């Protein structure tokens, strides 16, 4: 299953709903394109909802890191929401869990953006 992405706006925050696999190739490209598109429109408060992301490989992890730094370098914030156990475990062992701001409740996550 390839990755799909859709976005919605809540209180000035763009929630990016991702589903499927973030892997080398299409999945990583979709994520990169969506983030670039949001930034080009001045949307810099991004909440990536990973509830339906069931698989991520090292390329996908790299793409998430790239999205995080790209948004941050433009003065924005990218946070993660609703990690599946597998994605949570991968971020733990790669020590990225402490790098990303990870949330498990959408309303709380929305309010956390400055």
């Amino acid at each position, binding site marked *: 299953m390839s990755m799909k992405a859709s976005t919605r706006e809540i209180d000035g925050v763009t929630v990016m709903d991702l589903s499927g696999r973030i892997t*080398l190739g299409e999945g990583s490209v979709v994520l990169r394109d969506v983030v670039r598109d949001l930034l080009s429109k001045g949307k810099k408060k991004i909440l990536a909802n990973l509830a339906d992301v069931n698989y991520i490989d*090292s390329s996908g992890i790299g793409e998430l890191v790239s999205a995080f730094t790209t948004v941050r370098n433009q003065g924005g914030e990218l946070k993660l929401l609703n990690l599946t156990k597998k994605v949570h475990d991968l971020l733990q062992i790669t020590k990225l869990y402490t790098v990303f701001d990870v949330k498990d409740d959408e309303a709380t996550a929305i309010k956390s953006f400055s």
Partner: protein
Amino acid sequence: MTAKQVSYTFDSTLETVNNAEAQAGRIATEAGFSEDDVMSISMAVREAAVNAVLHGNAYDPNKKVMLAFNQDGKDLTILVRDQGKGVNLDAIPDCLAPENLLKQSGRGIFLMRSLMDDVQIHASSAGTEVKLIKHFPGAAGNFQEASH
């Protein structure tokens, strides 16, 4: 029990990465591994295949990726071999070092080591061979012998 082997030869394409992952998942499932172990094995094989296609063979259509599974009752051993220049392991930075945490790449071998019980990497000018080993937690598994 008699060792069971199956091997495949793939082109250096992105499709190979998906095929390798799928074969690993199928064989690990048939061998009786748990769902978590199947995911770990298929993910480790995917990472090895990505390295073989991208970094080893660099998508060269004249170079192949060899994938082999061996089951001996104690372990499932998977070989992923490319025909590249051979990886320089000393040149791969520690992806857990603070200064490398935000790098986009360099986590593949680390993930393989995290997901498998043992990972052995042999590099030469003829290519890189990655051996991924997962111990069976209990009774030996089973998969059909084949060759492609």
